[in-house]
Protein backbone atom coordinates (compact mmCIF):
# COMPACT_ATOMS: atom_id res chain seq x y z
CA UNK A 1 0.00 0.00 0.00
CA UNK A 2 1.59 3.16 -1.09
CA UNK A 3 0.97 6.69 0.06
CA UNK A 4 -0.88 7.63 -3.12
CA UNK A 5 -2.96 4.45 -3.29
CA UNK A 6 -6.53 5.72 -3.62
CA UNK A 7 -7.98 2.42 -2.42
CA UNK A 8 -5.92 2.55 0.74
CA UNK A 9 -7.10 6.12 1.39
CA UNK A 10 -10.72 5.15 0.89
CA UNK A 11 -10.27 2.17 3.18
CA UNK A 12 -9.03 4.53 5.85
CA UNK A 13 -12.27 6.47 5.60
CA UNK A 14 -14.55 3.51 6.35
CA UNK A 15 -16.47 3.73 9.59
CA UNK A 16 -15.74 1.67 12.64
CA UNK A 17 -17.97 1.56 15.73
CA UNK A 18 -16.14 3.01 18.74
CA UNK A 19 -17.13 3.46 22.37
CA UNK A 20 -15.69 6.40 24.30
CA UNK A 21 -14.31 5.38 27.67
CA UNK A 22 -13.72 8.91 28.94
CA UNK A 23 -15.59 12.15 28.84
CA UNK A 24 -14.02 14.43 26.25
CA UNK A 25 -14.79 18.15 26.48
CA UNK A 26 -15.69 19.96 23.26
CA UNK A 27 -15.63 16.92 21.01
CA UNK A 28 -19.41 16.80 20.60
CA UNK A 29 -18.96 17.82 16.99
CA UNK A 30 -18.35 14.16 16.21
CA UNK A 31 -21.86 13.41 17.39
CA UNK A 32 -23.38 16.30 15.48
CA UNK A 33 -23.90 18.77 18.33
CA UNK A 34 -20.97 21.14 18.14
CA UNK A 35 -19.73 22.75 21.32
CA UNK A 36 -21.03 20.02 23.61
CA UNK A 37 -18.97 17.43 25.47
CA UNK A 38 -18.81 13.76 24.62
CA UNK A 39 -19.96 11.59 27.52
CA UNK A 40 -18.17 8.41 28.53
CA UNK A 41 -19.90 5.39 27.05
CA UNK A 42 -21.06 7.10 23.87
CA UNK A 43 -21.03 4.91 20.79
CA UNK A 44 -20.05 6.64 17.56
CA UNK A 45 -18.92 5.43 14.16
CA UNK A 46 -15.49 6.90 13.55
CA UNK A 47 -13.34 6.59 10.44
CA UNK A 48 -10.80 3.82 10.63
CA UNK A 49 -7.80 6.15 10.76
CA UNK A 50 -9.21 8.15 13.66
CA UNK A 51 -10.49 5.20 15.65
CA UNK A 52 -7.22 3.38 15.27
CA UNK A 53 -5.21 6.38 16.46
CA UNK A 54 -7.45 7.01 19.46
CA UNK A 55 -7.38 3.41 20.61
CA UNK A 56 -3.65 3.04 20.14
CA UNK A 57 -2.84 6.34 21.85
CA UNK A 58 -4.07 4.76 25.07
CA UNK A 59 -1.03 2.53 25.20
CA UNK A 60 1.25 5.48 25.80
CA UNK A 61 0.20 5.56 29.45
CA UNK A 62 -3.10 7.31 30.00
CA UNK A 63 -6.19 5.15 30.23
CA UNK A 64 -7.80 4.03 26.99
CA UNK A 65 -9.77 6.73 25.21
CA UNK A 66 -11.97 4.59 22.97
CA UNK A 67 -12.54 0.90 22.49
CA UNK A 68 -13.04 -0.49 19.01
CA UNK A 69 -15.69 -2.96 17.93
CA UNK A 70 -15.94 -5.16 14.89
CA UNK A 71 -17.55 -3.31 12.01
CA UNK A 72 -20.86 -4.59 10.72
CA UNK A 73 -19.17 -5.92 7.56
CA UNK A 74 -17.12 -8.40 9.57
CA UNK A 75 -19.74 -9.40 12.11
CA UNK A 76 -20.56 -12.95 13.14
CA UNK A 77 -23.60 -12.94 10.89
CA UNK A 78 -21.55 -12.12 7.80
CA UNK A 79 -18.92 -14.71 8.69
CA UNK A 80 -21.60 -17.38 8.94
CA UNK A 81 -23.01 -16.38 5.59
CA UNK A 82 -19.55 -16.57 4.04
CA UNK A 83 -19.00 -19.99 5.57
CA UNK A 84 -22.28 -21.20 4.10
CA UNK A 85 -21.72 -19.95 0.56
CA UNK A 86 -19.14 -17.30 -0.29
CA UNK A 87 -20.51 -16.72 -3.75
CA UNK A 88 -23.92 -15.42 -2.83
CA UNK A 89 -22.77 -12.71 -0.44
CA UNK A 90 -22.80 -9.16 -1.80
CA UNK A 91 -19.48 -7.92 -0.44
CA UNK A 92 -19.82 -4.56 -2.10
CA UNK A 93 -22.94 -3.77 -0.12
CA UNK A 94 -21.12 -4.65 3.11
CA UNK A 95 -18.08 -2.53 2.38
CA UNK A 96 -16.73 -1.30 -0.98
CA UNK A 97 -13.23 -2.19 0.13
CA UNK A 98 -14.13 -5.35 2.00
CA UNK A 99 -10.78 -7.15 1.81
CA UNK A 100 -8.70 -4.05 2.45
CA UNK A 101 -10.86 -3.27 5.46
CA UNK A 102 -10.54 -6.78 6.81
CA UNK A 103 -6.76 -6.67 6.39
CA UNK A 104 -6.64 -3.55 8.53
CA UNK A 105 -9.04 -4.99 11.09
CA UNK A 106 -7.06 -8.20 11.34
CA UNK A 107 -3.98 -6.15 12.14
CA UNK A 108 -5.82 -4.78 15.16
CA UNK A 109 -7.80 -7.80 16.31
CA UNK A 110 -6.41 -11.28 16.46
CA UNK A 111 -8.95 -13.52 14.76
CA UNK A 112 -7.45 -16.72 13.43
CA UNK A 113 -10.77 -18.14 12.35
CA UNK A 114 -11.69 -15.04 10.42
CA UNK A 115 -8.46 -15.32 8.42
CA UNK A 116 -9.40 -18.84 7.41
CA UNK A 117 -12.95 -17.89 6.46
CA UNK A 118 -11.77 -14.91 4.41
CA UNK A 119 -9.02 -16.90 2.68
CA UNK A 120 -11.50 -19.55 1.70
CA UNK A 121 -14.01 -16.94 0.57
CA UNK A 122 -11.46 -15.22 -1.59
CA UNK A 123 -10.33 -18.44 -3.21
CA UNK A 124 -13.83 -19.63 -4.05
CA UNK A 125 -14.83 -16.25 -5.41
CA UNK A 126 -11.57 -15.85 -7.37
CA UNK A 127 -12.27 -19.09 -9.23
CA UNK A 128 -15.74 -17.77 -10.06
CA UNK A 129 -14.31 -14.44 -11.17
CA UNK A 130 -11.85 -16.15 -13.50
CA UNK A 131 -14.67 -18.09 -15.13
CA UNK A 132 -16.70 -14.97 -15.68
CA UNK A 133 -13.71 -13.01 -16.97
CA UNK A 134 -12.87 -15.57 -19.64
CA UNK A 135 -16.42 -16.14 -20.69
CA UNK A 136 -17.25 -13.53 -23.30
CA UNK A 137 -20.83 -13.27 -22.05
CA UNK A 138 -19.74 -13.30 -18.42
CA UNK A 139 -20.37 -9.63 -17.78
CA UNK A 140 -23.83 -9.55 -19.36
CA UNK A 141 -25.37 -12.95 -18.74
CA UNK A 142 -26.43 -14.49 -15.47
CA UNK A 143 -23.13 -13.39 -13.89
CA UNK A 144 -24.35 -9.82 -13.49
CA UNK A 145 -25.70 -10.38 -10.01
CA UNK A 146 -22.46 -11.90 -8.78
CA UNK A 147 -20.20 -9.36 -10.48
CA UNK A 148 -22.14 -6.47 -9.00
CA UNK A 149 -21.30 -7.81 -5.55
CA UNK A 150 -17.54 -7.79 -6.06
CA UNK A 151 -15.48 -5.59 -3.80
CA UNK A 152 -12.80 -3.27 -5.15
CA UNK A 153 -9.91 -5.75 -4.95
CA UNK A 154 -11.97 -8.39 -6.70
CA UNK A 155 -12.93 -5.95 -9.41
CA UNK A 156 -9.27 -5.28 -10.12
CA UNK A 157 -8.75 -9.02 -10.37
CA UNK A 158 -11.65 -9.34 -12.79
CA UNK A 159 -10.26 -6.48 -14.83
CA UNK A 160 -6.78 -8.01 -15.02
CA UNK A 161 -8.11 -11.37 -16.14
CA UNK A 162 -10.63 -9.90 -18.55
CA UNK A 163 -8.24 -7.44 -20.20
CA UNK A 164 -5.61 -10.08 -20.69
CA UNK A 165 -8.05 -12.48 -22.30
CA UNK A 166 -9.30 -9.70 -24.55
CA UNK A 167 -5.79 -8.71 -25.63
CA UNK A 168 -5.10 -12.32 -26.46
CA UNK A 169 -8.19 -12.52 -28.63
CA UNK A 170 -7.24 -9.33 -30.40
CA UNK A 171 -3.74 -10.59 -31.03
CA UNK A 172 -5.03 -13.90 -32.36
CA UNK A 173 -7.38 -12.03 -34.66
CA UNK A 174 -10.52 -13.47 -33.09
CA UNK A 175 -11.78 -10.10 -31.90
CA UNK A 176 -11.62 -6.61 -33.31
CA UNK A 177 -9.86 -3.75 -31.62
CA UNK A 178 -12.55 -1.34 -30.61
Amino acid at each position, binding site marked *: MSYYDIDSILTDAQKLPCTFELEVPGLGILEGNAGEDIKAGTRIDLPLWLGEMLSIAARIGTSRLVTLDMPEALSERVMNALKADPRTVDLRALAPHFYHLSERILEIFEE*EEMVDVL*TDTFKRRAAEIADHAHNSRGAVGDGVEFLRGLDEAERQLFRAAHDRAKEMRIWAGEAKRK
Partner: protein
Amino acid sequence: MAFPLPRGITPSEIAFLAEMETVTIVPRQRLEGLELLGGPVEPLVPPRRASLPLWLALLLKRQRRANIIPPSWLHPDPLGLILEVESQHQDYKNSFSPPPPLPALGKKPIPEHNTHQMEIDTMLHRRFYLKILQLGGDFTKETPALPFHWVEVGNMLLDAASDDLVEPDQIRRLLKDLREVRMSKMRSGVDVLDAAATGGGGVALTGVGAMELGEERGFVAGVVDNLRKIGASKEQARREQLADQRVNGEYSATQDEEEDYMEF
Protein backbone atom coordinates in the same frame (compact mmCIF):
# COMPACT_ATOMS: atom_id res chain seq x y z
CA MET B 1 -1.87 5.14 -13.58
CA ALA B 2 0.08 7.26 -15.99
CA PHE B 3 1.42 4.30 -17.93
CA PRO B 4 -1.40 3.09 -20.18
CA LEU B 5 -0.24 -0.50 -20.68
CA PRO B 6 -0.96 -3.13 -18.05
CA ARG B 7 1.94 -4.55 -16.14
CA GLY B 8 3.68 -7.51 -17.68
CA ILE B 9 4.32 -8.34 -21.24
CA THR B 10 1.72 -7.94 -23.99
CA PRO B 11 0.77 -10.70 -26.44
CA SER B 12 2.46 -8.96 -29.35
CA GLU B 13 5.69 -8.68 -27.37
CA ILE B 14 5.59 -12.38 -26.56
CA ALA B 15 4.98 -13.11 -30.23
CA PHE B 16 7.96 -10.92 -31.08
CA LEU B 17 10.17 -13.03 -28.82
CA ALA B 18 8.80 -16.20 -30.39
CA GLU B 19 9.97 -15.02 -33.80
CA MET B 20 13.49 -16.06 -32.84
CA GLU B 21 12.50 -19.75 -32.89
CA THR B 22 14.06 -21.61 -35.78
CA VAL B 23 12.00 -23.34 -38.43
CA THR B 24 12.92 -25.41 -41.43
CA ILE B 25 12.13 -24.10 -44.90
CA VAL B 26 12.49 -25.20 -48.48
CA PRO B 27 13.66 -22.15 -50.43
CA ARG B 28 12.44 -21.50 -53.92
CA GLN B 29 15.13 -18.96 -54.76
CA ARG B 30 18.81 -18.62 -54.18
CA LEU B 31 20.02 -16.33 -51.45
CA GLU B 32 23.53 -15.54 -50.34
CA GLY B 33 24.30 -16.19 -46.69
CA LEU B 34 23.38 -13.30 -44.38
CA GLU B 35 25.39 -12.04 -41.44
CA LEU B 36 22.73 -11.13 -38.85
CA LEU B 37 23.13 -10.02 -35.26
CA GLY B 38 21.53 -13.26 -34.10
CA GLY B 39 24.11 -15.30 -36.02
CA PRO B 40 24.86 -16.11 -39.65
CA VAL B 41 22.18 -17.49 -41.94
CA GLU B 42 23.30 -20.25 -44.26
CA PRO B 43 23.11 -19.62 -48.02
CA LEU B 44 19.82 -20.77 -49.49
CA VAL B 45 20.06 -23.14 -52.44
CA PRO B 46 16.62 -24.10 -53.77
CA PRO B 47 16.04 -27.80 -53.27
CA ARG B 48 18.01 -27.97 -50.04
CA ARG B 49 16.29 -27.45 -46.70
CA ALA B 50 17.57 -24.75 -44.38
CA SER B 51 16.93 -23.62 -40.79
CA LEU B 52 16.01 -19.98 -40.39
CA PRO B 53 14.61 -17.80 -37.63
CA LEU B 54 10.83 -17.68 -37.82
CA TRP B 55 10.62 -13.99 -38.70
CA LEU B 56 12.85 -14.43 -41.73
CA ALA B 57 11.00 -17.56 -42.78
CA LEU B 58 7.67 -15.73 -42.56
CA LEU B 59 9.09 -12.84 -44.58
CA LEU B 60 10.29 -15.17 -47.32
CA LYS B 61 7.00 -17.05 -47.22
CA ARG B 62 4.97 -13.87 -47.68
CA GLN B 63 7.14 -12.98 -50.68
CA ARG B 64 6.59 -16.49 -52.03
CA ARG B 65 10.30 -17.20 -51.97
CA ALA B 66 10.10 -20.23 -49.69
CA ASN B 67 7.86 -22.93 -48.26
CA ILE B 68 7.83 -23.61 -44.53
CA ILE B 69 8.02 -27.16 -43.29
CA PRO B 70 5.81 -27.29 -40.20
CA PRO B 71 7.53 -28.42 -36.97
CA SER B 72 6.93 -32.03 -35.98
CA TRP B 73 4.32 -31.18 -33.32
CA LEU B 74 2.22 -28.96 -35.58
CA HIS B 75 0.28 -31.80 -37.21
CA PRO B 76 -3.23 -32.98 -36.43
CA ASP B 77 -2.06 -36.37 -35.11
CA PRO B 78 0.38 -35.34 -32.36
CA LEU B 79 -1.87 -32.44 -31.34
CA GLY B 80 -4.85 -34.75 -31.14
CA LEU B 81 -2.92 -37.19 -28.97
CA ILE B 82 -1.71 -34.47 -26.63
CA LEU B 83 -5.23 -33.09 -26.36
CA GLU B 84 -6.63 -36.51 -25.56
CA VAL B 85 -4.06 -37.18 -22.86
CA GLU B 86 -4.49 -33.71 -21.37
CA SER B 87 -8.26 -33.81 -21.24
CA GLN B 88 -9.12 -37.47 -20.68
CA HIS B 89 -6.52 -38.97 -18.37
CA GLN B 90 -6.67 -38.84 -14.64
CA ASP B 91 -2.91 -38.36 -14.22
CA TYR B 92 -3.06 -35.14 -16.18
CA LYS B 93 -6.09 -33.66 -14.51
CA ASN B 94 -3.99 -31.03 -12.81
CA SER B 95 -0.74 -31.03 -14.69
CA PHE B 96 0.32 -30.15 -18.18
CA SER B 97 1.91 -32.30 -20.82
CA PRO B 98 5.69 -32.23 -20.39
CA PRO B 99 7.82 -29.87 -22.48
CA PRO B 100 10.15 -31.29 -25.09
CA PRO B 101 13.23 -32.87 -23.51
CA LEU B 102 16.25 -30.66 -23.13
CA PRO B 103 18.78 -31.25 -25.86
CA ALA B 104 21.62 -31.68 -23.37
CA LEU B 105 19.76 -34.16 -21.16
CA GLY B 106 21.70 -37.38 -20.77
CA LYS B 107 24.97 -35.93 -21.93
CA LYS B 108 25.78 -33.69 -19.03
CA PRO B 109 25.68 -34.87 -15.44
CA ILE B 110 22.58 -33.55 -13.70
CA PRO B 111 23.28 -31.08 -10.88
CA GLU B 112 22.76 -32.63 -7.47
CA HIS B 113 20.03 -30.31 -6.20
CA ASN B 114 17.92 -30.78 -9.31
CA THR B 115 17.90 -34.56 -9.31
CA HIS B 116 14.61 -34.90 -7.50
CA GLN B 117 12.74 -32.54 -9.79
CA MET B 118 14.38 -34.19 -12.77
CA GLU B 119 13.15 -37.57 -11.62
CA ILE B 120 9.62 -36.27 -11.32
CA ASP B 121 9.88 -34.68 -14.74
CA THR B 122 11.25 -37.78 -16.43
CA MET B 123 8.64 -39.91 -14.68
CA LEU B 124 5.87 -37.66 -16.00
CA HIS B 125 7.47 -37.70 -19.37
CA ARG B 126 7.71 -41.48 -19.46
CA ARG B 127 4.10 -41.88 -18.35
CA PHE B 128 3.05 -39.42 -21.01
CA TYR B 129 5.01 -41.34 -23.61
CA LEU B 130 3.39 -44.63 -22.54
CA LYS B 131 -0.06 -43.06 -22.80
CA ILE B 132 0.73 -41.90 -26.29
CA LEU B 133 1.87 -45.40 -27.27
CA GLN B 134 -1.28 -46.92 -25.77
CA LEU B 135 -3.35 -44.56 -27.87
CA GLY B 136 -1.74 -45.93 -30.97
CA GLY B 137 0.77 -43.20 -31.59
CA ASP B 138 3.93 -44.23 -33.35
CA PHE B 139 6.64 -41.75 -32.64
CA THR B 140 9.80 -43.76 -32.45
CA LYS B 141 11.92 -40.78 -33.36
CA GLU B 142 10.27 -38.08 -31.31
CA THR B 143 7.68 -37.77 -28.56
CA PRO B 144 5.06 -35.19 -29.41
CA ALA B 145 5.51 -32.30 -27.03
CA LEU B 146 4.46 -28.68 -27.05
CA PRO B 147 7.45 -26.30 -27.13
CA PHE B 148 7.58 -23.15 -25.00
CA HIS B 149 6.28 -20.93 -27.80
CA TRP B 150 3.62 -23.27 -29.14
CA VAL B 151 0.71 -20.81 -29.10
CA GLU B 152 2.61 -18.10 -30.89
CA VAL B 153 4.38 -20.25 -33.47
CA GLY B 154 1.20 -22.20 -34.17
CA ASN B 155 -0.84 -19.05 -34.62
CA MET B 156 1.67 -17.29 -36.81
CA LEU B 157 2.18 -20.28 -39.06
CA LEU B 158 -1.58 -20.73 -39.39
CA ASP B 159 -1.81 -17.09 -40.31
CA ALA B 160 0.95 -16.82 -42.87
CA ALA B 161 1.61 -20.33 -44.08
CA SER B 162 -1.62 -22.27 -43.76
CA ASP B 163 -1.11 -23.77 -47.22
CA ASP B 164 2.07 -25.48 -46.00
CA LEU B 165 0.34 -27.17 -43.07
CA VAL B 166 -1.51 -30.47 -43.09
CA GLU B 167 -5.24 -29.86 -42.53
CA PRO B 168 -4.89 -26.31 -41.20
CA ASP B 169 -8.51 -26.06 -40.07
CA GLN B 170 -8.22 -29.09 -37.87
CA ILE B 171 -4.93 -27.82 -36.45
CA ARG B 172 -6.58 -24.50 -35.69
CA ARG B 173 -9.40 -26.25 -33.86
CA LEU B 174 -7.05 -28.52 -31.91
CA LEU B 175 -4.86 -25.60 -30.85
CA LYS B 176 -7.91 -23.75 -29.59
CA ASP B 177 -9.17 -26.76 -27.66
CA LEU B 178 -5.74 -27.39 -26.15
CA ARG B 179 -5.49 -23.80 -25.06
CA GLU B 180 -8.88 -23.91 -23.39
CA VAL B 181 -8.17 -27.17 -21.58
CA ARG B 182 -4.87 -25.87 -20.25
CA MET B 183 -6.22 -22.47 -19.28
CA SER B 184 -8.97 -24.01 -17.20
CA LYS B 185 -6.39 -26.22 -15.48
CA MET B 186 -4.33 -23.18 -14.66
CA ARG B 187 -7.32 -21.35 -13.22
CA SER B 188 -8.47 -24.30 -11.16
CA GLY B 189 -5.04 -24.11 -9.52
CA VAL B 190 -6.38 -21.16 -7.49
CA ASP B 191 -7.28 -23.59 -4.72
CA VAL B 192 -3.68 -24.41 -3.92
CA LEU B 193 -2.41 -20.89 -4.43
CA ASP B 194 -2.90 -19.84 -0.83
CA ALA B 195 -0.28 -22.37 0.18
CA ALA B 196 2.00 -20.70 -2.34
CA ALA B 197 1.35 -17.30 -0.79
CA THR B 198 2.42 -18.41 2.67
CA GLY B 199 5.30 -20.51 1.39
CA GLY B 200 5.41 -24.23 0.82
CA GLY B 201 2.76 -25.16 -1.73
CA GLY B 202 2.35 -24.05 -5.27
CA VAL B 203 1.23 -24.97 -8.74
CA ALA B 204 3.56 -26.88 -11.04
CA LEU B 205 3.79 -24.93 -14.26
CA THR B 206 6.14 -27.32 -16.03
CA GLY B 207 5.31 -27.37 -19.68
CA VAL B 208 3.25 -24.17 -19.74
CA GLY B 209 3.96 -21.98 -22.73
CA ALA B 210 5.04 -18.34 -22.85
CA MET B 211 1.73 -17.00 -24.11
CA GLU B 212 -0.26 -18.92 -21.52
CA LEU B 213 1.94 -17.53 -18.78
CA GLY B 214 1.53 -14.04 -20.19
CA GLU B 215 -2.24 -14.36 -20.21
CA GLU B 216 -2.67 -15.72 -16.71
CA ARG B 217 0.05 -13.68 -15.05
CA GLY B 218 -2.17 -10.77 -14.03
CA PHE B 219 -4.84 -12.96 -12.51
CA VAL B 220 -2.62 -15.44 -10.68
CA ALA B 221 -0.35 -12.72 -9.32
CA GLY B 222 -3.40 -10.79 -8.12
CA VAL B 223 -4.82 -13.82 -6.33
CA VAL B 224 -1.54 -14.63 -4.60
CA ASP B 225 -1.05 -11.02 -3.58
CA ASN B 226 -4.50 -10.71 -2.08
CA LEU B 227 -4.25 -14.04 -0.27
CA ARG B 228 -0.95 -12.92 1.15
CA LYS B 229 -2.50 -9.70 2.46
CA ILE B 230 -5.46 -11.51 4.00
CA GLY B 231 -3.21 -14.07 5.63
CA ALA B 232 -0.65 -11.49 6.75
CA SER B 233 -1.76 -11.37 10.39
CA LYS B 234 -1.81 -15.14 10.69
CA GLU B 235 1.58 -15.36 9.06
CA GLN B 236 2.89 -12.76 11.49
CA ALA B 237 1.62 -14.81 14.43
CA ARG B 238 3.19 -17.96 13.00
CA ARG B 239 6.55 -16.25 12.57
CA GLU B 240 6.50 -14.98 16.12
CA GLN B 241 5.66 -18.44 17.38
CA LEU B 242 8.50 -19.90 15.33
CA ALA B 243 10.91 -17.31 16.63
CA ASP B 244 9.85 -18.14 20.19
CA GLN B 245 10.34 -21.81 19.54
CA ARG B 246 13.74 -21.16 18.07
CA VAL B 247 14.81 -19.16 21.10
CA ASN B 248 13.57 -21.90 23.42
CA GLY B 249 14.98 -24.61 21.18
CA GLU B 250 18.42 -23.09 21.15
CA TYR B 251 18.29 -22.73 24.85
CA SER B 252 17.53 -26.41 25.44
CA ALA B 253 20.04 -27.41 22.76
CA THR B 254 22.85 -25.64 24.56
CA GLN B 255 21.76 -27.33 27.76
CA ASP B 256 21.98 -30.70 26.04
CA GLU B 257 25.44 -29.91 24.83
CA GLU B 258 26.53 -29.09 28.28
CA GLU B 259 25.17 -32.36 29.58
CA ASP B 260 26.99 -34.27 26.87
CA TYR B 261 30.13 -32.48 27.78
CA MET B 262 29.67 -33.39 31.43
CA GLU B 263 29.38 -37.08 30.56
CA PHE B 264 32.67 -37.00 28.73
